[in-house]
């Protein structure tokens, strides 16, 4: 069974000629089939966690370990992590000029699956996945994320999630900037992948709204660069009612 284990993870970033520690000892285990929501105020380090796991060069790991099924993730290059089964749906997906969505998806699927998908079944697979996400087929011929609306970018991320079938999916504020209809479509996409029972999901969000559509097994409150409190779905209800105030104060005095 696929398991992502994060142990005492410390991460720094260079900003304004100074080194700043953002993650201050994160411990978290995500198992196949589980959904963990990570919630927290702005600046708490949620996105840093997501990008550090994916291997973004901006972040420096200064301590701790991350393993996927016992393999050392931190030793892997960005593409190796993806091929090992980690997937990051980005908050701000990047425009890639000159590369069509269809070419990108096929190249990516070829890399992750280790062989080129058979063309006939692949075309059908992509077409059906796009239909489920209410995406226009013409979308496939556009350049990756170029001129996409916020909602289109997020659907495109979830399309990749559905096609690449990772072991662990990290969804970084996938709900931000979406209207209710787009949020529902995107959440349904995530739920389809979850229902397969093959994926562990790390759902990073600022708002509780998405948790009405995607039910987490565990909720963690992120504050001051570490997990401040963990609980079940009921913890989200508490946050909905009380906000992050108590954690922010707690973090400041700690």
């Amino acid at each position: 069974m696929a398991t992502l284990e994060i142990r005492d993870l410390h991460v720094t970033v260079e900003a304004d000629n100074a080194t700043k520690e953002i993650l201050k000892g994160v411990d978290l285990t995500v198992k196949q089939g589980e959904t963990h929501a990570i919630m927290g105020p702005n600046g708490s380090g949620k996105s840093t966690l997501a990008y550090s796991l994916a291997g973004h060069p901006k972040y420096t790991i200064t301590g701790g370990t991350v393993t996927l099924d016992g393999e050392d993730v931190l030793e892997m290059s960005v593409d190796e992590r993806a091929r090992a089964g980690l997937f990051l749906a980005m908050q701000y997906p990047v425009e890639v000029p000159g590369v069509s969505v269809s070419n990108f998806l096929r190249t990516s699927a070829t890399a992750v699956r280790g062989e080129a998908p058979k063309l006939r079944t692949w075309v059908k697979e992509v077409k059906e996945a796009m239909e489920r996400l209410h995406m226009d087929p013409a979308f496939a011929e556009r350049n990756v994320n170029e001129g996409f609306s916020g909602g289109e970018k997020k659907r495109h991320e979830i399309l990749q999630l559905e096609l690449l079938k990772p072991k662990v999916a990290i969804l970084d504020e996938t709900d931000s900037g979406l209207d209710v209809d787009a949020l529902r479509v995107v959440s349904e996409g995530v739920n389809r992948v979850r229902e397969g029972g093959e994926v562990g999901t790390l759902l990073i969000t600022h708002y509780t709204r998405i948790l009405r559509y995607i039910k987490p097994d565990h909720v963690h409150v992120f504050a001051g660069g570490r997990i401040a409190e963990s609980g079940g779905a009921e913890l989200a209800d508490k946050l909905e009612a009380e906000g992050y105030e108590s954690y922010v104060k707690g973090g400041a005095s700690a």
Partner: protein
Amino acid sequence: MAEAQNAPVQGGTVPAGSTTAGQIAVAAESTVATRMSAPPSYDVADFPVPHGREEEWRFTPLERLRGLHDGSAVADGGIRVEISTPDGVTQETVGRDDARVGRAGKPVDRVAAQAYSAFEKASVVTVPKEARPEEPIRITVHGEGGTAYAHQVIELGAFAEAVVVIDHTGDAVLAANVDYVLGDGAKLTVVAVQDWDDNAVHVAQHNTLVGRDASFKSVVVTFGGDLVRLHPRVSYASTGGSAELIGLYFTDQGQHQEHRLLVDHNQPHCSSNVVYKGALQGDDAHAVWIGDVLIEAAAEGTDTYEMNRNLVLTDGARVDSVPNLEIETGEIVGAGHASATGRFDDEQLFYLMARGIPEADARRLVVRGFFAELVQQIGLPDVEERLLAKIEAELEAAV
């Protein structure tokens, strides 16, 4: 892709299809002609030796022209030209006084005039009236380390149709003028490949005279050389002509590749479409694209569009892209232009790699995708394949 910073629109109404990513001047008098430092002439003595601040020379490193611009470059042969003509097409070597030489346009700068003043024999390829050779006319220009001035004429009779592939390889210092003369209803496709060795210097002016209802398609592909500066120019002999100018360049470390285009809409109801795309990588890779389109007062019914796109793959490379559209009549179908320079940056690389794509493949994907649309329009499979292989090789060299 970020739009390049360009001068704002200067007065007048912007016609449909225009973008403001460049300069659109509505002028009573052309500045395309007047901003040159001397009027066009066949005689090199009519042009002062450039010092580098002139509008037409300000992007070009004169010290790397090996004396082509100041009269000190002495011709010593050193290039080998081979021309293979299919049945029905003739090739002649003619003297300077042949009436067909220089008919498509006058030299507009000092180096073109130097080439015109210094060449000894010109080559004239003629496709007779209504001939349609099945095979391309192939011209190979191979540099053998020398300096040369050259003149090539390609003339198509009325309703003739032909494809010409001109291939430049080896090492040379070459200044040349090329004339393309299209008779009424003729169709000419020219693919000019600059696949020079690293030290070559190549400066050329291409003059095209498009006949009534004739179609000209030019594909310029520039990879090699230390300095390549090409100046394709198109004008129309009568109404109904069309010109499609496609260009691809891959500018590497230390290379200067400059493409300056002028489409002079001097006749009514003609069209032109210009698309040039370039990729750059490495320190001091410098690409220059100047796209001048002039719609003269007589040129009612003109339809024109020009576009330049650049993809900067690494730090240290530089692009100067200057589209310029001048309109002297409002009675046109459309006129527009666009210029954009995008970077392939670390965030794009991260995004692709985060989807499992290895770094080298990610770069290849982006560059091939960037050029694909143009490569497909060449229409000559052997040239397309060679081009893609060349792009791969350029990328391999960088990784």
